[in-house]
């Protein structure tokens, strides 16, 4: 791979060219020169784009692509295309397929499917067999095959003893256990946040308490067992506080928040629009502000699009019956930049890597490029035209966003949007 990138502003605090606008020469798959006004040595592919910015490649710790089993939602191939087009060089894919990814063979299947792509796909294995929550899956064996974490996607481990055992067992090989924070008996048959909007819509509410009880339980368990815990997609202010306190106690816990929980509140559901039906549910303004604060002070370690394509037949139905989930890769950067500064946005899109054992490569001479190319000042109303996913269930549809990815350079490949 030989490429000359012209006039790109480098946003990478680990690079000696941070905040500078430079030309970057990539020769034989390695960054060979970074300087002003580099000449094209030998008719190399040249990338010259309006207000081009570069950063280390972005990472998303929670995406779902449907395959195997739910190909009507999306496929791994198109999912990776979506990721590349949205600026992500690495994505961790959930095990919520059919069958559930819960064995070495399943992990190997996923790896084979994703092989030879610009985007690196990291499989997450199920924590329990079939994500049924009764018996531990062969997590050591999956770890050997390349699983980066173990998670029953959106399914809480209701048995606290099983969670205790999972944390203890995974610590043998430094495995990362993920626990969806919801106490199902409190959540009941709720379909949105419990508050004034759920009350006035007559929809059953999921109290914030359902999440907070579960977070508190898991933190108590972690304190007892040791090991590594990741709590994906928290949504309430009290959860942020609980995790902040746990970190003060030096517990090895990380957490993420879905970008839409930083952007929307439950008041948008007033029209019964199923695009806003997500889990955890959109919460209150106070929760949203507490989450943003948690992101700013580092209590929340990473943000995720929680990308989850859902076929229209499961969205264009009565609210109670509609499936949870939204796609989010395409809108992630634009939405984040509507909340945070560019610098913070880039930080959020890259800082989750170490927890999921993703190598970080700075933009410096001699390094292999793992780069996202983007235009931070692109302003647009997010529409169906911006969607690459096969399913079109976008929570950000019709929102005014700021910033768009041009594409990525990673795994010795270039993927730039037309």
């Amino acid at each position: 791979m030989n490429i000359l990138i012209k006039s790109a502003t480098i946003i990478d605090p680990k690079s000696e060219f941070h905040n500078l606008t430079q030309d970057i020469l990539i020769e034989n798959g390695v960054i060979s020169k970074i300087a002003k006004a580099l000449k094209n040595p030998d008719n190399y592919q040249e990338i010259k784009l309006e207000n081009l910015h570069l950063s280390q490649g972005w990472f998303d710790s929670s995406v779902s692509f449907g395959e195997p089993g739910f190909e009507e939602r999306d496929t791994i191939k198109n999912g990776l295309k979506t990721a590349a087009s949205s600026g992500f060089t690495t994505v961790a894919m959930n095990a919520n397929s059919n069958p559930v990814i819960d064995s070495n063979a399943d992990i190997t299947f996923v790896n084979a499917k994703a092989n030879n792509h610009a985007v690196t796909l990291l499989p997450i294995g199920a924590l329990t067999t079939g994500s049924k929550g009764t018996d531990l899956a062969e997590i050591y064996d999956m770890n050997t095959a390349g699983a980066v974490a173990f998670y029953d996607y959106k399914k809480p481990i209701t048995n606290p003893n099983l969670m205790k055992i999972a944390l203890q067992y995974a610590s043998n090989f430094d495995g990362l256990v993920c626990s969806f924070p919801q106490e199902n008996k409190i959540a009941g048959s709720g379909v949105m946040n419990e508050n004034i909007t759920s009350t006035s819509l007559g929809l059953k509410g999921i109290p914030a308490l359902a999440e907070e009880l579960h977070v508190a339980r898991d933190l108590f368990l972690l304190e007892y067992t040791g090991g590594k815990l990741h709590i994906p997609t928290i949504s309430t202010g009290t959860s942020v506080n609980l995790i902040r306190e746990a970190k003060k106690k030096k517990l090895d816990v990380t957490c993420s928040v879905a970008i839409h929980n930083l952007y929307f509140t439950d008041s948008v559901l007033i029209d019964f629009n199923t695009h806003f039906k997500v889990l955890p549910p959109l919460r209150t303004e106070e929760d949203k502000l507490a989450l943003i604060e948690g992101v700013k002070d580092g209590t929340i370690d990473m943000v995720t699009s929680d990308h989850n394509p859902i076929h229209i037949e499961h969205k264009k139905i009565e609210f109670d019956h509609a499936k949870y989930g939204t796609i989010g890769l395409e809108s992630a950067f634009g939405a984040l930049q509507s909340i945070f500064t560019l610098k913070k946005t880039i930080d959020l899109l890259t800082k989750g890597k170490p927890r999921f054992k993703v190598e970080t490569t700075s933009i410096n001479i001699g390094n292999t490029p793992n780069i996202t190319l983007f235009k931070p000042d692109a302003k647009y109303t997010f529409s169906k035209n911006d969607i690459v996913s096969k399913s079109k269930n976008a929570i950000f549809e019709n929102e005014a966003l700021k910033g768009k990815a041009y594409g990525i350079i990673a795994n010795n490949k270039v993927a730039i949007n037309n």
Partner: protein
Amino acid sequence: MSELSVNHLLGIKYLNKDDIKLIFETADHFKEVINRPIKKVPSLRDITIANLFFENSTRTKLSFELAEKRLSADVINFSSAQSSVKKGETLIDTVNNILSMKVDMVVMRHPNPGAGVFLSKHVGASIVNAGDGAHEHPTQALLDSYSIREKFGEVKGKKVVIVGDILHSRVALSNIFALQLQGAEVMVCGPKTLIPKYINKLGVKVETNLRKALDWCDVANMLRVQNERMDISYFPSTREYTQQFGVNTELLNSLDKEITIMHPGPINRGVEITSDVADSGQSIILDQVQNGVAVRMAVIYLLASKIKQ
């Protein structure tokens, strides 16, 4: 104002004050009609209405059907306790199939909140919500307010307590919206387990002591406990519920004023209300039923006149 601000009746929350006034004035006329020897007008001879009941109903369905027939509309009925989803057909497909037979208006009861709102966005007919899960039951709230207006002359300034299972009740929610829109004060009363935690944010008073609630109110609207909607016991026994939240003659006589008792039906005699109270002069339960036909005639007539435009 001579027409509604809406093309569907999906809930009271989508109406304004003038809509309610117009519906009531129109209902006054129809109430006179249904007390004539010939209880029928030819207004809607060119309108076909489908009553789609995806949930069991007796009185609401009869009341709608009667209202439609007294307006001379053509009426078709479809009842299925099973939701269309369970049968494999989507709600939109079910309704579009019926609409393709040239139906102008759909009256729908459905177990899911928002089903009417959803349908109104995807099919080309005027929708009347006859109850959608625990969301709204707008015609019930309208007939309740109409009955209060009939009894007291106006709704404004009246104090109304809704007693019982507020959590699972579309009647409660629609009544809260309707009464507030007309300037009444609203209180809800029941065991805390059956009152939504955030209902006070809707601007209603919350009281867990029935005696205090009745002392406060002019009208008590007694709701049935909706056991069929409960996945867990919200109180230990019916006996204990009645001890705390049932009205009886002794309790009413101990108040220092005569309050009006309402009930949307069906009544569980001896649970939320004793027989002697239900049948007493303080009760306007049967007036509510009669007013239901007039109010529904008004709603259908007004929506149909918007279709005809």
